[in-house]
C-alpha cells in the first residue's frame, strides 16, 4: 500500500471512530438495592431501591418537592409518579428477569415510593414475580439496565442484595458483571444478580 493510501485508511478509521458513538454516555447514575421477598409458596417478588446521583436527585426534588420539606407527601408523590416514573413501563422498568433461564417480562410494578435518605434521592417499588419453591433449587437472574444507556445502573459493588421473609428457604447469591450480556453499541456491561433458592 502506498503512503497515500495509508493516509486515506488512517483518516477513514479515525472518522469512523469519531463520527460513530463509540463512547458510553449516561446522564443518570443509579446505585441501589435488590431485595428478594419470599412468602409461604416461594419467591413473591423483588423490591428494588434506586439511589440517584446528586444532580438528578436535586432536579427531581426541585421539580416535585413543591413545599420544599425534603420529602414527598402523597400529592407530590402522585405527580412525581405520573411524570417521572410511570413512563418507565415502556422500558419494563429497566428490570430484566429470567426464571430458570426463561425470560420473565416485567409488565407492572406496585408500591412505588420515593424519598431522600442520607441526602440522596431514591425510588423504590416492588416487582411481583412468583416463583414457587421446591426441594430442587430454582434460579432467578436479575439484571437492571437501560438499553439506551441514558441511565447507568448498579456498577460493580454498588448493589446491595438481600432477602426478606426467607427463613424457610436456602438462598445463595452470585453477583457479577456479565460481559455476555453487554448491551447496545455502548458496550455497557450489566451486573447480573443470580439467586438460587430451595426449600429447607
Amino acid at each position: 500500500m502506498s503512503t497515500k493510501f495509508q493516509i486515506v485508511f488512517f483518516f477513514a478509521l479515525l472518522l469512523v471512530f469519531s463520527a460513530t458513538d463509540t463512547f458510553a454516555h449516561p446522564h443518570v447514575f443509579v446505585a441501589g438495592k435488590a431485595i428478594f421477598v419470599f412468602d409461604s409458596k416461594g419467591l413473591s417478588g423483588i423490591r428494588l431501591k434506586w439511589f440517584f446521583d446528586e444532580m438528578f436527585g436535586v432536579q427531581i426534588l426541585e421539580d416535585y418537592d413543591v413545599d420544599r420539606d425534603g420529602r414527598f407527601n402523597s400529592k407530590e408523590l402522585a405527580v412525581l409518579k405520573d411524570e417521572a416514573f410511570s413512563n418507565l413501563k415502556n422500558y419494563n422498568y429497566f428490570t430484566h428477569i429470567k426464571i430458570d433461564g426463561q425470560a420473565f417480562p416485567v409488565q407492572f410494578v406496585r408500591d412505588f415510593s420515593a424519598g431522600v435518605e442520607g441526602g440522596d434521592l431514591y425510588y423504590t417499588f416492588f416487582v411481583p414475580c412468583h416463583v414457587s419453591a421446591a426441594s430442587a433449587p430454582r434460579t432467578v437472574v436479575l439484571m437492571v439496565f437501560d438499553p439506551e444507556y441514558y441511565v447507568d445502573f448498579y456498577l460493580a459493588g454498588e448493589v446491595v442484595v438481600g432477602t426478606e421473609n426467607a427463613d424457610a428457604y436456602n438462598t445463595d447469591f452470585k453477583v457479577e458483571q456479565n460481559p455476555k450480556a453487554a448491551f447496545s453499541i455502548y458496550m455497557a456491561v450489566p451486573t447480573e444478580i443470580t439467586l438460587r433458592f430451595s426449600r429447607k
Partner: protein
Amino acid sequence: MMRILVPLLLCALLCALLGAAPALARNPFMGGGGDGGKQGTGIGRNQGSAPASKPDPEKIGAGKGETVAPVKEPGFFRALRVRLAPLQRQLKERLSQYIKVLKESTSLGTLFWFLLFSFAYGVIHAMGPGHGKAVASFYFLSRKGTLAQGLLMGFLMGFLHAASASAVVLVTYFVLSRSVMARFEAAGGVIEAVSFLLIALIGLVLTARVVYALIRRKPLHVHEHGHENPSKGRGFLLVALVAGMVPCPGAAIILLFTLALKAPWLGLASVGAMALGMGFTISATALLAVYFRKSVLAAALTRPRIFGAVHAGLALIGSSLVFLLGSALFLGSL
C-alpha cells in the same frame, strides 16, 4: 487500488450512519418509547469488566439480612469504554462538589478547576450519541472544507447545542417553574424532530445539486489540474445552525442543578465551558472529514482518469448520507 478504496469508504460511512441512529435516546423517566416488551438480549460481545469500585454499604445502607454482595469479576479486561461510565460519574460528582464549594466562597483556583472539568465534561459528552458529528463529517465529505470552516462549524454546533438548552431551561424555569425536566424533554423532542427534518431537506438539496451538476456534466468546482475552488457561500453555517439547535440534555442537567442551588451564574459559566468542550470534539470530527476527503482526492490525483469519478462519488455519497441520516432520524422520532 480503487477496488479497495471505494468499499472502504462506503463501509466507513455506513458505520457512521448506523452509529448516529441512537441519537434518539431521551430521558426515559420523562418520556420515550423504549423497546416495549422485548427483553434485553445479550449481544454476546466479549467486553471486559467494569472496574470494581468499593462497595459502599454505608451509602446504600445494608440492613438486617442484607449484604453487599461480593462481586465476581470476569478474569480479563480490555475495555477503555466500560471505564468511561465511572469516569463520567466521577466527573459529574466533581462538578456538583465544585458548584457547592463555589456557591459558598469564590476562589479563582477552584473556579479554574471547575471550568476545566466542565470543559472536559463537554469533550466527553460530545463523544456520546448525537447527530452533530455525523452531519458535520458527511457535509465535509461531500464538499471541500477548510480548517477554518471545520473549526467554525464544530464550535458553532457546540455553542448552539448548549445555548438552546439554556434557553429552554431558563424559560421553563422562570415562566412555568414546575416540572422543568419533563418539559425540557418534551420541548427537546419537538426541536429534535424539526432539526432532523431540516437536515433531511438540506441533504436533499445538496444531493439534487450534485446530481444536477453531474447530468449537466458541469465540473464540480474542479479545475483541470484537479484543484478545487474553496466552496463558496455560508451553507456550512446553516448546517451548523440546523444540527446544533437541538437542546443538550447534559447542559440542561447542570443548569437545572445550579438553579436549584440558587447559583445560576455558576451553571451558565459551566455550560459555556462545556460548549467549548463539545465544540472541540465536533470540530475534530469535522476536520477529520475535511482531511479524509483531501487525502482521498490526493490519492486519486495520481490516476487522472478516475479522479472525476472519485470526486463525484464523494460529493454524491456525502450529500446523500446527510439526507439519509436526516430522514432516518426524523422518521425514528415520529
